[in-house]
């Protein structure tokens, strides 16, 4: 699942500004590794590097030119909201399709109308989606487009205005979530704290760590490290590892900016 190059940023200017911009967000987990951040600031990660650095449970969407264009449009501040939503939906669809690849399956042979046998495979039933309010809900439609009648749970995580600490305010899941594969949807991870809280809630409801697949659009290396360290068995799928997360995503997608 690796083709094409990755967009490389243009040297020191982007590097510096990105550090400044993200200092606050990255403070919690990345100060101990400044070297690491600088290197990833220049080039966002290729799939091989990700595998080497973060373990095999984090996967990147194949970065072909088309995906690169989608990322570019979403990040461009001059993109209109209608374009933004259109292209974000396309990217979400691709990420969801790729996330579904992580679900377990069994071999299954079927007879085709021509009478021949096709050696296919079958996905197990018993999956569900969980979106983290609010930006995670942007990905629900993409999931619905792929799995028409899938159950979708929700978690609301808010960060405290004073302490910046994330806390779970609301959670509603299907009753038997403990026996299901869970597709956790959250598009932007800059620190990973929100996702940590959400996964903890899922675990409290009896979902094993290995049954959770995190669908993500934009992830910072810091957040990736945080999440992978905390939940090594959870599968993570993202489209880009880049030190600057497009934090305007939720606002622009829902039009509340």
């Amino acid at each position: 699942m690796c083709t094409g190059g990755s967009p490389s940023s243009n040297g020191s200017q982007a590097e510096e500004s990105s550090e400044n911009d993200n200092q606050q967000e990255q403070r919690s987990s990345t100060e101990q590794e400044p070297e690491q951040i600088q290197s990833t600031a220049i080039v966002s990660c290729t799939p091989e590097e990700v595998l080497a650095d973060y373990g095999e449970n984090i996967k990147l969407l194949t970065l072909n030119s088309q995906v690169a264009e989608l990322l570019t449009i979403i990040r461009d501040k001059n993109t209109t909201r209608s374009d933004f939503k259109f292209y974000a939906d396309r990217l979400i669809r691709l990420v969801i399709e790729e996330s579904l690849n992580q679900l377990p399956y069994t071999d299954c042979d079927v007879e085709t109308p021509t009478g021949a046998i096709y050696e296919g495979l079958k996905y197990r039933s018993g999956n569900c989606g969980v979106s983290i309010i609010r930006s995670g809900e942007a990905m629900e439609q993409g999931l619905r487009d792929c799995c028409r009648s899938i159950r979708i749970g929700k978690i609301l995580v808010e960060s405290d205005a004073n302490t910046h600490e994330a806390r779970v305010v609301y959670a509603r899941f299907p009753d038997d979530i403990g026996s299901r594969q869970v597709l956790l949807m959250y598009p932007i991870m800059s620190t990973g704290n929100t996702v940590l809280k959400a996964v903890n809630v899922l675990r409290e409801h009896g979902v094993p760590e290995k049954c959770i697949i995190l669908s993500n659009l934009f992830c910072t290396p810091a957040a990736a490290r945080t999440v992978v360290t905390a939940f090594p068995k959870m599968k993570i799928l993202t489209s880009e590892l880049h030190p600057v997360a497009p934090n305007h995503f939720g606002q622009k997608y829902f039009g509340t900016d």
Partner: protein
Amino acid sequence: MSSITFLCSKSSSNNINKDANAKGKSATPSSVFAAAGLLTPTPTAISIPATETLQQQQPQQQSQSQLHLQLHTPSKKVKAAVKSNGHSHIDDRSDATEPIFIDATSMGSELNCCPASPTTVPAKSAFESPMRRSGRRQRTTSIGNQTTTANPCEGIIRSNNRTIYTAGRPPWYNCAGQQVEPFVIGICGGSASGKTTVAEKIIESLDVPWVTLLSMDCFYKILNEKQHELALINEYNFDHPDAFDIDLLIDVLTKLKEGRKVEVPVYNFVTHGRESQTKTMYGANVIIFEGILTFHSPEVLKLLDMKIFVDTDPDIRLARRLKRDISQRGRDLKGVLKQYLNMVKPSYANYIAPTMAHADIIVPRGGENTVAIALIVQHVHTQLQLRGFKLRETLANSYKDQPMPDSLHLLHPTPQIKGLHTFIRCKNTSRDEFIFYSKRLIRLVIEYALSLFPFKSTCVETPQGVLYEGKRMESRKICGVSILRAGETMEQAVCDVCKDIRIGKILIQTNLKTGEPELYYLRLPKDIKDFKVILMDATVATGAAAMMAIRVLLDHDVPEENIILASLLMAEIGVHSIAYAFPKVKIVTSALDPEINSKFYVIPGIGNFGDRYFGTEPSDEY
């Protein structure tokens, strides 16, 4: 009026098709007479209220369903070529005409009347051609109406619940995708010798589904004012070689022979100028070029594969001409004779009769000579077979055990794609699920296809104040072209990923008798050559239909490297064929199957994708 329509009819082959059909269906004698150049029918299908005859109607004001009639004078007998498709024309050429049009259909079908030399057109009132009158938009379309079948019954195959029309255009290129030169027949002969009748008889007996008939009349030069006046008093010599634009003629004929799309001028015999609109023609398997001076230019002679001279007795020709001009065009005996003696006859002796030496075959008595026509048809058949218009079988049997070409881009075979294939390939999948899962798969194929277009690096500003190095597509001019019917299922996905995309359509059907693909219908954006094209077909077995579609695009000047063929499922053979014929066309598919069966279905395959998607599967297909 009649001259214009007659011109159109001669310059396009569609009438022949309609006429042939008409003969088969209702055998209206008038259309036969019209085609035979002996136009003497009475307007049995029309009744004209007397009040209408004095009423001058503007064509633009008429509704399309209105009948168009052109009357000479109320007192004179009305001449009409009644076409069995409900389209009627009262044909006349008189200075004192009171034009009323009768047109039962909105289609701009033209009058197929006698192939008279245009010397005899003094009508003053200018009318628009029927095409224009109908107010229909000129469009990049062709096919269906340019085909011709001798027997309409053979053109339609009914099996179970399916009706299949087999009058499309069969492959006009060989299995390497290269153009096979069409067979060009030149027909020469004096005025009113029956050239068009011979041409039509050949087309009928030939039974080749794709024939283009090109008339030399389209290439008359534009007259200046003085020449125009001469023409009005029968003193302009339309039978002289200088009256024709030979250079343009050679250009058009050469392009047709290369199988390219050409714009044939439409000559207006009233204004003696060219209509602003042109007639779009495509290369064909057989091109018939007829005219009084067909053999005059040595360059044109070189382009002709077979040269036929229609040698009709001068007395008969004069008799036909007199009859035609006087009874149908309301001209006086004196004028006709003057023109004949001063120009038509000398021109024949000086320019036309000597070219008889170039002819391969001389047909005495014109269209009545069935033996000569049978011989000609036999020869053409032999020549066509030698040129190899048998495509699909050749394709199916080549390229075994070859490595897959570089132009093939297979989607990464993820479990999800395999899972989707499992759903849509299973014969027990309900249509609801079939449509849903194939749509998902199509979306992935289209997204992947888009990534193969050229991109350029760009740098954008982000709201976070950071510059971001990304990519943008070089050109946003993308056009989807679907191969009907199964390819249409992919249109929605293309629209979902590209805002405001243009969609072209190509209808290609397999002729059940020959197993060959045939082109029926084509509708593409006008400037398609500037677009990147995603060509869509759900399944590709031998690749014959896809190759035909690619060939069509190339004929419209789309560069080969700008075409991406996107498909859900392909057979290896099809990929090989397409890649060999068109190495620069990128081929995108989600799965590759090893074989095809004797009915050209992919094995294991999906079955008939279109039938399953649209729910038209017959009960026992396999």
